[in-house]
């Protein structure tokens, strides 16, 4: 019976040979694999939905597809307790400051899954005046799922990709156990258009320049310096 079962990927893959008489009693693994196994089967998504993709996400969490099979059934309504942010739907310019704040409030390790065309690249609203064309312009995205909307099975496939990503991480290399603080992402400001604080230097440099003189109003402007023209 045990021979037919698929091999457990966590146990006895550390590269050490276990003698046959001890196989019932001893299992050798690496710390990374144990650590990653614990993390990959307890990814708690944050409970928030933005648009129609959220309906598919709700369907995925319900009993037909059942996220609980992956240990993800605990949808947390607080960013402090969640590991995964499923950006499910169109990200409007009014919503992106809140999304960045929620991302900043999540404790490490944290993952972002961009669900559907709108969240990944703007989708049909890419040219819209009020839509961010891709949430990855603001928060680092780990997995992208194309589709409009992705079916529940496509979302499950994306969640399994998140698990794959968790498996590939090593306890010695992850950013949240390094020395030093992880910088927060500055929250964009909602104005007449969205303002990203990371671009403040560029905006200041651009606005401090003198306004270009229109060519039609002053055809000699490039030839004569402005000081000479006023005197």
């Amino acid at each position: 019976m045990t021979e037919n079962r698929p091999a457990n990927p966590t146990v006895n893959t550390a590269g050490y040979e276990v003698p046959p008489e001890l196989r019932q009693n001893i299992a050798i693994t690496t710390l990374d694999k144990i650590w990653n196994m614990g993390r990959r089967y307890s990814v708690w998504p944050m409970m928030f939905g933005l648009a129609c993709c959220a309906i598919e996400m709700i369907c995925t969490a319900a009993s037909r597809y059942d996220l609980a099979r992956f240990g993800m059934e605990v949808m947390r309504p607080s960013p402090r307790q969640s590991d995964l942010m499923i950006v499910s739907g169109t990200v409007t310019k009014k919503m992106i400051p809140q999304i960045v704040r929620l991302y900043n409030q999540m404790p490490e390790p944290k993952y972002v899954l961009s669900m559907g065309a709108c969240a990944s690249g703007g989708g049909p609203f890419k040219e819209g005046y009020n839509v961010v064309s891709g949430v990855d312009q603001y928060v680092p995205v780990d997995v992208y799922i194309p589709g409009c909307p992705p079916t529940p099975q496509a979302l499950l496939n994306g969640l399994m990709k998140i698990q794959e990503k968790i498996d590939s991480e090593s306890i010695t290399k992850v950013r949240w156990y390094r020395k030093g603080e992880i910088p927060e992402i500055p929250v964009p400001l909602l104005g007449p258009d969205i303002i990203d604080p990371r671009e403040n230097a560029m905006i200041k440099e651009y606005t401090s320049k003198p306004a270009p003189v229109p060519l039609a109003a002053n055809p000699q402007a490039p030839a004569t310096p402005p000081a000479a023209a006023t005197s």
Partner: protein
Amino acid sequence: MYGIGVLKGMWVTLVHFIQTFVDDIKWAGKRYYTPEGIAHRSSKDTKGIFTVQYPEEKLPVPEEFRYIPILLQEEDEHGNLHDRCTSCGICAKVCPPQCIWIVRTEDPVTKRPVPEPVDFFIDVDICMNCGYCAEYCPFDAIKMDHDYELATFDRHVQNIYNKEKLSKPVSYYAKIRPTNYAREEALRAAEAAKKVEAAAAKAAPAS
């Protein structure tokens, strides 16, 4: 007496719990991982667990299910693949989110346009799976695929599909949409026959 409602609710839960095992025993191991089992669990008559165990078994998609577009390629008798696409650009014009780019080409000698596109890009992070491209294509060259397992780690590299990634042989289309394929092939054959007839009628009075 208080608590009757709670007891009634728990009774319903208990009945469901028992029915799960009853149904599993009735199907004797064939309830999971078999097409009949999936069909039974998707039907309204099912009792007990109806979860689709996704990575191991998949809910069959209906024939008209549509996801990302594909480009069809005809295979000739020598095994070479030829695009049905003539790079006319109708799909790129009707595409509501404008996610299609076609690179046209011309013959280096005669300077006349070559009907097959050099490259064909679809940004799947803009595509809204509406199927207008497939509806409007006059050559039945672009069709909607059934494959939904497309999650990637990097969208700028992997999510802009080129012609190589989009192209599929016609046999693949015949497999995923047999009814549509049969109907379209009948129409194409009828049109070809009409063309032959018209050519014959044109040739007859002249002779």
